[in-house]
């Protein structure tokens, strides 16, 4: 069930000196939705997340979070936003008990039960200092702090960084349950794209040159397809990607992967127009990670 927009980005432009990172970017994140922001390194993901978190003023355009400009949020609005920074930033000099005492003072809706539910699983005394924790343990404390604030909107910047598979799963399971049960709006980035498949409702793909695709995960996975042409059927010159064929890439075994938002018949016709025999073409199932690499390209 969706309502108004929790995040509205409109005509966003950002430059670092002469280099333009975003040029007229626009999208909305509706309340109650979980959105994954995906893109390869260097496409402006970090810049966008910094702008959304309020730690970078855009060169032009607007970026409103819960109705206010993201770099000039009122105290009341900041209270409704939970941020998880890359690397699970925390006050290293505090113990678990001190972390709770400090943060709970700022948030009237502090959920002690939520915090301790996560913390108890660590099996650590409350006097344990953050600086003596592993990355995984610290991530649990950080997630506990953010969830206990009971925010309406959570923004998580690459929560997977430094986490092993166990802690990543634990983090993700809690986040999914918390966001779904509380109908929270979540914007998340991660280098582990496969996690997004379980978590997000919508995705935004950022590509080089400022190209953006904003769609629901279900629509994307239903319409974006992977076809494979075996090595024997591949001509010397690869078919060109273009209007019908989104991407064409040679595999390590000499075969060719073709990615397209079209059905088999349309792709067959496109290949024939390029003098490629499509009779050996077969459609392959994809995970989100496969689709991400297919959509954004390997290089």
């Amino acid at each position, binding site marked *: 069930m969706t309502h108004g927009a929790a995040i509205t980005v409109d005509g966003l432009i950002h430059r670092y000196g002469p280099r333009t990172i975003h040029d007229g970017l626009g999208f909305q994140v509706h309340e109650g939705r979980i959105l994954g922001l995906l893109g390869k390194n260097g496409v402006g993901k970090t810049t966008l997340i*910094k702008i959304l*978190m*309020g*730690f*970078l*003023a855009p060169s032009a355009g607007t970026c409103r979070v819960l109705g206010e400009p993201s*770099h000039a949020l009122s*105290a*009341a609005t*900041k*209270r409704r*936003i939970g*941020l998880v*920074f890359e*690397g699970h*930033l*925390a*006050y*290293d*000099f*505090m113990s678990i008990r*001190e972390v709770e*005492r*400090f943060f709970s*003072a*700022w*948030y009237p809706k502090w959920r002690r039960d939520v915090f301790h539910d996560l913390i108890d699983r660590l099996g650590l005394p409350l006097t344990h200092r953050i600086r003596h924790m592993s990355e995984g343990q610290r991530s649990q404390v950080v997630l506990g702090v953010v969830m206990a604030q009971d925010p309406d909107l959570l923004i998580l910047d690459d929560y997977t960084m430094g986490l092993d598979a166990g802690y990543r799963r634990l983090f993700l399971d809690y986040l999914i349950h918390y966001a779904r049960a509380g109908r929270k709006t979540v914007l998340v980035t991660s280098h582990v794209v496969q996690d997004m498949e379980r978590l997000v409702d919508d995705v935004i793909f950022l590509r080089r040159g400022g190209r953006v695709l904003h769609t629901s995960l279900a629509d994307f996975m239903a319409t974006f397809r992977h076809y494979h042409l075996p090595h024997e059927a591949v001509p010397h010159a690869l078919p060109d990607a273009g209007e019908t064929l989104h991407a064409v890439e040679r595999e390590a075994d000499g075969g060719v992967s073709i990615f397209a938002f079209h059905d088999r018949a349309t792709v067959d016709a496109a290949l024939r127009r390029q003098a490629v025999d499509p009779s050996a073409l077969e459609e392959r199932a994809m995970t989100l990670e496969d689709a991400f690499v297919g959509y954004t390209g390997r290089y």
Partner: protein
Amino acid sequence: MPALFYKEWLKLRPVLALLIAGTLAFSVYLFLSVRHQFRIEHAEMLYYQANHIGRLFYEDLRYVPLVTGVILAVAQILPEVQRGRLRLSLHLPIGLAPLVLAHLLIGLAALGVILALDLAVLALTIGTFFPAAFVASAVTTALPWMLAGVAAYLGGALALLEPDRRVQAANLVVTAGVVWLCHLSRQYGAYDHALWGLAGLVALMAPAVLLPAHRFRDGGGR
């Protein structure tokens, strides 16, 4: 706001304990040093040296406040800027100016306690061996050194918070200039007519800390 005091207390208490222990150790040294002078020379000769030649019996105190200010700035601000941890505080439901000024207020209060201890030790030591008139003179002579300590603290905060390396260098140069002014003369009473002006100059450094904090928030944070 009490939560901020709590956080800063947790962060600063080890270094405050060290600074107070250091101040106490220095006070013992200063006391024994002056006492030693009185053991090897006649008191009248030492009064003459202090009164007419302008010999400072407590010159070892001169750079102690400066070092204290630097240590406190580093202990308070460095953990905040490492890995961009200041973003945690900047996202707290409080405006940037009250947040930054509250941090400074806490740092200055902690520094004030140490500097007051320095002055008390000085007054006690001088009062023990010299006539009462020397005590006021010693305190007013040491006050610019205390201001240098405040300038070092504020300059340290300015430089550490600044995300732009060039502005950071400029901040350090300005701070060095203010500290230099505070140590320009070691004569008794040299700053009697300039102390308030110097204090005003040092005070101007406090609101200036808002500028690097703004720059940090608007894109300088890592």
